[in-house]
């Protein structure tokens, strides 16, 4: 925290350098009044700045500087000391003051009489804890264990201290857990089979790339800070190729855009591989020294793959495949970024394995500026001390029970021994984000008690019994790292929690206290503790050494952000892979153990059913990360409702004009929304972006089935969802 406690008078006389430090404009005597709200002095004029970390499920995980005047946040922006954040935030991050002071914040614990009725009454924290604790103890008594209690928590806040929620549930006994991730599972398994783990190069190394292929990734919307490095590289002469079924915002910036038929990217990669092998453009030394199974893979490709076949399959003309293959194989280093969306298909994992193979045969893995970059977790080695207390003595059951987060509703309904009777939901909005929301609702209907901790009255809260109001990042303490860049960011408490909000960690301690009051020994989670002590406990010697910091507090005092030692920022630099053989495995026995072909082969895409011939994709939207941000009025003022992108040819066939209301339907559900006629989507595909718009009573998942991806069990415990293999029909409403 940079505290500058001085009077407003002194501040107005302050030097330009001081104002630069504070990021504030200095009001000169000539300045007309009324133009600079910050100069309208309030009370004693105490101006402070704090470091925060954006904890959302986002590549960029920014380091933030928050300006607080007289206890109120007046500006939130990026931290210049972080060379990835570069002092700037994305559009979503720029709305943070409104996130904090939104009139829509949930202010107090509340109880709803009748799920979905909107009949909420304010209760005290003590009442809330009492209702919840009594229910937990009653369930334990009735069923002999706490397994009927189910936790569904994931990525709404990746602050390491938020794992206190998992810790709290573990501290009452064995429970049922929503396991897995809707995010990256198939692709992560693929990289796990090939290399032992997903591990990406530092995105700041886009500047070192000679050639960049963004393969189903749209950083212009989902990672604006990466897009900056990509644009810089482009200006220096690096060629940017974007491969995507849609002309995304990123594709619009490409030197070359290649429109691939959705879910055939693996065929494209294998076609390129065939060309590279035929023309001896592969790195013979690299494959002979660093891989196993190359010959088997080579034989598979020779026998089964031709460039003509790939062209037919993918819709990419043969000469384009050949040229891109040659360019990619001869550029040194060449960088591939595989987007998460590309693998949200029934053959997603297999497609990632094929693209990995393309990078491996050209020797681009282990090279600065190169790589086949997907996701990484090298910097996540915290202590997770909030999770380590274990079940109390006398807990029934032997271990936690898992249900697949990606088919949550159905698996909760299927769990019968014992049945699930209570849900705790935190950092998650399953009613909006899960496939088949009607099934999720059925699962909710089976519950005796649903407790949701959240910031806003979202779809899940609307269907809960008790809501617990939580803090924003600016009202609590924490630490964050990214699954993409290599920085660690401190999160200080910038302001007092608004209203009666509490962090997930405080909620864990509060509930434990109540449980132990009602039944001593019923919860092992500590009942008190200073969040500052908790966050300091997350740091161990390894992570301190990796980031060259003495402590959390040391980092707080020294810029609030630190980059990991560069020895880890080039993935697989030592070419020691974490596979059973220690080599890159074109032939993976582990893959075979999980029921897959051992080689990176092409597996067929999901075919459109006759009655629902149109693919409906639901990619990420620029004003939201999942169901966060878009509902804020600052963003609603720009885009007030969802829309469906439709190609002019399809629109013509269906007699749909721009802005017409369109009904989109399949066997799972339907919804009606305005059309946007655009050539950005192909004629066999419509697009509805992911998000929660305030006042809109449907989400993109209304038509999404719980159709599984091909991989995910190996590293994530469960397979993911083929969100983009969603087929529908449309008609003018």
């Amino acid at each position: 925290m940079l505290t500058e406690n001085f009077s407003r008078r002194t501040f107005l006389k302050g030097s330009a350098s001081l104002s630069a430090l504070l990021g504030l404009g200095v009001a000169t005597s000539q300045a007309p009044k009324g133009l600079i709200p910050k100069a309208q002095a309030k009370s004693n004029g105490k101006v402070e700045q704090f470091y925060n970390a954006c904890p959302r499920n986002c590549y960029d995980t920014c380091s933030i500087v928050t300006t607080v005047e007289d206890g109120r946040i007046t500006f939130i922006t990026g931290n210049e000391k972080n060379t990835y954040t570069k002092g700037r935030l994305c559009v979503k991050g720029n709305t943070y003051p409104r996130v904090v002071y939104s009139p829509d914040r949930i202010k107090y614990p509340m109880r709803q009489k009748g799920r979905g009725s909107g009949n909420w009454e304010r209760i005290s924290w003590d009442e809330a804890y009492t209702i919840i604790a009594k229910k937990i103890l009653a369930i334990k008594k009735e069923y002999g264990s706490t397994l009927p209690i189910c936790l569904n928590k994931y990525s709404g806040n990746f602050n390491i201290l938020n794992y206190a929620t998992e810790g709290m549930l573990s501290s009452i006994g064995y429970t049922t857990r929503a396991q897995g991730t809707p995010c990256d599972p198939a692709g992560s398994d693929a990289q796990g089979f090939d290399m032992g783990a997903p591990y990406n190069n530092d995105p700041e190394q886009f500047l070192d790339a000679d050639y960049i292929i963004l393969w189903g990734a749209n950083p212009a919307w989902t990672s604006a800070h990466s897009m900056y490095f990509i644009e810089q590289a482009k200006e220096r002469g690096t060629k940017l190729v974007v491969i995507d079924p849609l002309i995304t915002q990123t594709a619009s910036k490409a030197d070359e855009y290649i429109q691939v038929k959705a879910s055939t990217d693996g065929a494209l990669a294998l076609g390129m591989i065939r060309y590279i092998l035929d023309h001896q453009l592969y790195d013979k030394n690299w494959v002979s020294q660093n891989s196993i199974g190359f010959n088997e893979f080579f034989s598979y490709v020779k026998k089964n793959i031709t460039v003509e076949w790939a062209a037919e399959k993918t819709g990419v003309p043969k000469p384009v495949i050949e040229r891109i293959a040659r360019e990619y194989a001869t550029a040194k280093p060449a960088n591939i970024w595989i987007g998460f969306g590309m693998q949200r298909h029934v053959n997603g994992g297999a497609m990632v394995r094929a693209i990995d193979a393309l990078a491996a045969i050209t020797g681009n893995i282990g090279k600065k500026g190169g790589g086949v970059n997907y996701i990484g977790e090298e910097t996540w080695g915290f202590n997770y001390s909030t999770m380590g207390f274990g079940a109390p003595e006398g807990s029934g059951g032997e271990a936690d029970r898992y249900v697949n987060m990606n088919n949550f509703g159905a698996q909760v309904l299927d769990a019968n021994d014992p049945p699930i009777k209570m849900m705790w939901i935190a950092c998650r909005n399953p009613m909006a984000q899960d496939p088949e929301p009607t099934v999720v609702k059925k699962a909710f209907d089976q519950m005796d008690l649903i407790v949701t901790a959240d910031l806003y009255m979202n779809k899940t809260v609307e269907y809960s019994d008790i809501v617990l109001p939580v803090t924003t990042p600016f009202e609590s303490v924490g630490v964050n790292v990214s699954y993409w860049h290599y920085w660690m960011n401190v999160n200080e408490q910038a302001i007092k929690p608004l209203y009666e909000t509490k962090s997930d960690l405080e909620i864990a301690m509060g509930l434990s206290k109540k449980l132990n009051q009602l039944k001593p020994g019923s919860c092992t989670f500590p009942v008190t503790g200073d969040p500052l002590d908790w966050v300091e406990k997350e740091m161990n010697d390894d992570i301190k050494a990796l980031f060259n910091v003495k402590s959390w507090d040391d980092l707080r005092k020294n810029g609030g952000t630190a980059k990991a030692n560069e020895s880890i920022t080039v993935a697989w630099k030592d070419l020691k892979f974490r596979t059973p053989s220690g080599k890159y495995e074109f032939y993976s026995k582990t893959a075979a153990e999980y029921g897959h072909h051992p080689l990176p082969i092409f597996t067929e895409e999901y075919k459109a059913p006759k009655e629902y011939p149109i693919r409906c994709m639901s990619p990420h939207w620029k004003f939201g990360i999942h169901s966060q941000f878009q509902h804020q009025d600052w963003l609603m003022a720009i885009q007030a409702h969802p829309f469906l992108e439709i190609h002019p040819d399809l629109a013509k066939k269906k007699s749909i004009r721009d802005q017409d209301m369109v009904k989109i339907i399949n066997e799972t559900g339907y919804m009606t929304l305005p059309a946007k006629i655009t050539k950005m989507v192909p004629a066999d595909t419509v697009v509805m972006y992911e998000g929660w718009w305030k006042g809109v009573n449907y989400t993109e998942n209304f038509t999404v089935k719980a159709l599984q991806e091909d991989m995910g069990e190996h590293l994530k415990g469960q397979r993911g969802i083929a969100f983009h293999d969603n087929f529908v029909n449309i008609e003018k409403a």
Partner: protein
Amino acid sequence: MAKKLGFLVNIERCIGCHACEISCKSFYQLEPNMRRRRVQELPEDVVGTPVRAFVSTACNHCDDPACKKACPVGAYTKREDGIVVHNQDLCIGCQMCGKACPYSVPMFNPVKKKMDKCSMCYDRLDVGQLPICVEKCPLEAIQIVDYNEVQPANAVSEIPTFADTSITHPTTHFILHKPGKQSRRF
């Protein structure tokens, strides 16, 4: 020689993200509906091949500002460096300036009952800082240029959707989007 400051908006760099607009709203703590900078979608065939293209505009700090002419109380001044400043203390909220501006820049603030527009953050410029939108654009797509000093070679003053520049002579210039190669499905 006096300066002639104006925005230079790089459409080639712009990703249409609205961070410029929202960082401005945040810094000046504007009401939710007030927009001193606006990002607009351009027609998708603007460069020949279909793309998602956007342009970010604020006040154009015109050489011949219609707002200033229309204001009955003299709330507008044009500084020597070209920045058009609106003084809210003098403003009576008659909205004549908003009607006169070919770009509909001045907006009525229904809470303050006054007009409101971009000041090019002149108070920040005066102490050597950049306007917020310039400093906070994640793609560095907005610059301030002294057009009496430099005439960026590839900059143009007119783009589709932008009103006739002969009326007020806006200082804003644009760098157009360069179309890339596209291989769309056969």
